[in-house]
């Protein structure tokens, strides 16, 4: 969920940057990215050794998860205010 939240906000990122933002190691991040990609929720582009991950805009699963994130964040903001 945290990976999707980050990518939902910034569009696309490489593995190291996702790991840095989540405060977890590279291997764990790669493993979760692979799971999300296998589910077609994410997709990636390769530029040499660099992989840029982004949310698969055509995936109904990705859309459902992003909707959930949006509603969740709205509710959190309302509670704070």
């Amino acid at each position, binding site marked *: 969920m945290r990976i999707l939240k980050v990518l939902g906000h*910034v*569009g696309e990122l*490489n593995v190291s940057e996702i790991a840095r933002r989540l405060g977890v190691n590279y291997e764990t991040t790669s493993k979760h990215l692979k799971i999300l990609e296998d589910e077609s929720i994410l997709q990636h*582009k390769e530029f*040499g050794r*660099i992989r840029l991950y982004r949310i698969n805009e055509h995936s109904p699963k990705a859309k459902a998860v992003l909707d959930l994130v949006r509603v969740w964040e709205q509710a959190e903001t309302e509670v704070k205010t």
Partner: protein
Amino acid sequence: MSHYRSVFRDETKLDINYVPHRLPHRDRELRLLMEFFSFLLQFPERMAQRVLITGDVGTGKTALSQRFGADMSREAGKQGKNFRYVHVNCREYHGSLFLILQHVVSVFHPNFPQRGYSAEELLRIVMQILDEENVYVILALDEFGSMVEREGSDAVYQLTRLQEVRQNKPQRLSLICILRNLNLISKLDASTRSTLQSNIINLERYSKQQLVDILNDRVSSAFKLSAVPEDTVNLIAELASSESGNARFGIELLWRAGKYANVEDLDTVTPECARKAVSSIVPTMRKSDLALLGFHEKLFLLGIARLFKQGQKASATLSEAEQAYAIACEEYDVKPNSHTQLWKYLKSLAATDIVRTEVSTTGSRGRSTLICLPRIPAHELERELKDILEKGEG
């Protein structure tokens, strides 16, 4: 609280980054640039082009390139062509090819990692991105000299011969290299030079009249109606002309003069506002220069300063200056010197750039000498001269 008045209608039109819709006296160069790149609207994949734009500071190189980029983008958009104009100031990136390419990548992928690859890899990545996005790019390398100085021939060669290592692939990347002086190119080796020097657009320095046109163009979009008198525009054009025809300097001066007019709550930007503006950005007068003048030279200059003090005049005749000098002599209880002597003083003051002279042929009695006080605010000059004269340093 007093009501705020401003001579400006839209001061952003005087910002250094503003690119006007029309570039006075650069129509021909803009058409030439369009002509060099016209293939992009017809067969973008078949060609890539390299163009050099050269010219002194303030001759409109950046504005020309950016105006072209905007016009070309609009035209390509209308025709459904996927085209991007990317403008990079090489100096901002310390002339580093790596950082420049990184900027290009960031245009398409803003979060692309900043480390972990070489300039060569980055160059391949740029081309991969252009292929994937099916986009044709003109990369304008402003201050190209800083890249030449830092990277030398190899990097420039890589960039200019990029297409040759991409056999049977669409030509994606054209270049506009913007630099002041072509001599910089001589630092490159012969083969690199030959890849660059085929299309050169050299921008000549603007003449005073051309600067007047440019300034009038900006006045009409940036200032309220009648807020900037002709005399002020002429004076600023004169100053910009003396700075190697630097239009950017003139536009900046125009903006600053407007600020001085606002501070003094004036409805118009007077020539005196322009003089204050220039004295704030150029170290124009040293007190020691004035102290070195002879006693009568100081009195003559004092008379001239008083003539301009009211702020409405941009120039005065020698005969007006002579009358003002006579009054100053009366004040200091000395006999005025002859006309011939004043003429010599005037030449000496002009030689030290304290005043500027020009010959006018528009008067009713043939040629007459006009005196301008281009750089020093008249009230400041009067105060300095009075101080020196009263201390008896004359």
